[in-house]
């Protein structure tokens, strides 16, 4: 492919704001799932932020006379075994779940990426830095060999159960992911010409890392972030489910599911299934957002998306299009 056509077909280079909006609109039409993802995430964040204004009841007020009532107009999602309104609690839950998940993900991404960049940059040579890098990788191996869930619970147990320790535990188990990701990106970029040029030009190692290496490796880290947040929410819920996470009566989807567990088997489905559904939809939204970042941040995938946006001219026969319906 000629270099000129390469640069043209590659980018989403907007010529002016109007065409930028037009481009977003076309992308949205081609990939409605991305739109769904962003809508869900915004809705969930909004629910958490505005819960005090939207929720009909307080999330921790229990009314023993209204125990295990099925969904109705006054209790849209029913009440649980101690008489708390499930709808209100579901709306308040993002405050806990998302706070933990976002905080933990950001912490692990920052620490992991920084470590990974350092290890990748200095690795493979001689000297104490490279040795340290190898040691860090071995430690990461060990951490990753641990059963994740058991490790998280153990961390919470040893540090004492609180919001902060749950965040710390989740952050800790996620660090190796970013460590490896960043390291492999940096390793492949390190050999690139422009890094060589910067070194020859006399830039210090540190500024090379910050100014050149990290920006180029960012795209895969960014794609990982959103998906990771979703996964952190699942882990929080799992921890709370076994009692090692957020404690009742703080509204949190996992602990709500746990509270409804026994009753579900006897037919009261709403205390467990409703918060679980909200949880699933939330994680789904973050997964979709992550998928959109993955496509838009990666030049190859972006190009593939762009070629779909083009008007339907005759396509050259490729294995794919021959076989497609």
């Amino acid at each position, binding site marked *: 492919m000629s270099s000129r056509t390469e640069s043209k077909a590659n980018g989403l280079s907007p010529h002016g704001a109007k065409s930028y909006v037009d481009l977003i609109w076309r992308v949205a039409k081609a990939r409605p799932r991305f739109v769904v993802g962003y809508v869900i995430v915004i809705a969930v964040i909004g629910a958490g932020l505005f819960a005090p204004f939207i929720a009909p009841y307080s999330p921790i007020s229990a009314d023993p006379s209204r125990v295990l009532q099925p969904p109705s107009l006054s209790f849209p999602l029913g009440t649980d075994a101690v008489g708390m309104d499930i709808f209100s609690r579901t709306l308040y839950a993002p405050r806990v779940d998302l706070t933990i998940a976002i905080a933990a993900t950001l912490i692990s991404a920052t620490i992991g990426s920084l470590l990974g960049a350092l290890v990748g940059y200095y690795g493979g040579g001689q000297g104490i830095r490279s040795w340290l890098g190898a040691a860090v990788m071995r430690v990461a191996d060990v951490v990753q060999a641990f059963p994740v869930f058991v490790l998280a619970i153990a961390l919470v147990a040893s540090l004492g159960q609180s919001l902060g320790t749950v965040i710390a535990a989740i952050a800790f188990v996620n660090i190796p992911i970013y460590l490896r990701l960043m390291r492999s990106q940096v390793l492949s970029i390190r050999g690139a010409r422009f890094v060589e040029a910067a070194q020859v030009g006399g830039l210090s190692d540190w500024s090379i890392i910050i100014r050149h290496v990290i920006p180029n490796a960012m795209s895969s880290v960014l794609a990982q972030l959103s998906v990771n947040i979703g996964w952190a929410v699942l882990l929080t819920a799992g921890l709370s489910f076994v009692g090692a996470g957020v404690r009742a009566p703080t509204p949190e989807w996992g602990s709500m599911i746990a509270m409804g567990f026994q009753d579900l088997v006897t037919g009261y489905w709403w205390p467990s299934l409703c918060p679980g559904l909200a949880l699933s939809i939330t*994680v789904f939204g973050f997964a979709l957002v992550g998928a959109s970042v993955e496509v838009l941040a990666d030049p190859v995938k972006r190009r593939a998306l762009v070629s779909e946006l083009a008007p339907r001219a005759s396509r050259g026969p490729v294995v794919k299009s021959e076989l497609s319906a």
Partner: protein
Amino acid sequence: MSIFAYIGRRLLLILPQIVGIVLVSFMLVKTIPGDPAVLMLGPTANPESLAALRKEMGLNESIPMQFWIYLKNLSKGDLGTSWQTTRPVLEDLLTRFPATLELVSFGLLTAILIGLPLGLVSAFRPRSWLARVADFYSLATGSLPDFWLALVLIYVFYTLLGVAPAPLGRLDMAILPPTQITGFYTLDSLFAGDWEAFKASVSHLVLPVLALGLINAGPIFKMTQSTVERMLQSDFSRYEMLCGMPHGLVLRHALRNSLPSILTIISVLYGFLIGGAVLIEIVFSWGGAGQYAVQGVLNSDLYPVLGFVLFSAIFSLFVYLIVDLIYFAIDPRLSH
């Protein structure tokens, strides 16, 4: 180098890796609050017996010394005792680990049976409706909490429809487990010719295996689809097309070149699920090793936790070794 030399080298490396893992878990576990002696003897025990027990368990020594004692016992096959079950941890694990293994193995198999074909179809026909559905499926199931899906399945198939057995373990109350050969109730009952036990074990496996399989099919699907698609777009695939090779051949070659990545994800999942099926084990009262470990952590019963970490680490390392050997068989570039 010859294959035996390679295996030998890997086995040698496994040992320090395991020691490392045990060391880290030992340190971690020791930070969990709770006095084991008190837990074992109960709050009403008199101080003399407490002191005696502490001395016997070596709790007065320094941490490195305690670790050394633990290693020594380990080499003798003594993994400590659980104060909850009052039995040696090794014994507990030998019944529980196969339970987890059986659950996870069938679950993974189900996941492969769902995920692999979906991935292949999506890679061969990327614009078909099936590919879109598969995409949605993997995103959706990846968002589900496994314990919640298990609850949904229980509600639908047990509470509403009544076709599944109650989520209370691996067998019905009235049925005795078959003589243990592998620890897998399904296999052992077949070996023993015990038809009742076989039916019971299978029917109890259905829901948890389904829950595991549905959720873990997603990563397998994604890896298969993305790898096969990448192979089809690679230089050598396009060259084969330029040479006029028939589609079937091009697809077969692309698949073969994708095998290493697919095997990798399967092996990673296998190792992960040993500890990752914990919540399913808890929901179904499975009596598995993960559940055992979690109960250990929550109740400051430390030896079960260590024992479980040890078992699962050894298992993972062996799975990785086997997968690497398969790579050798497939990819000629590696033997150089």
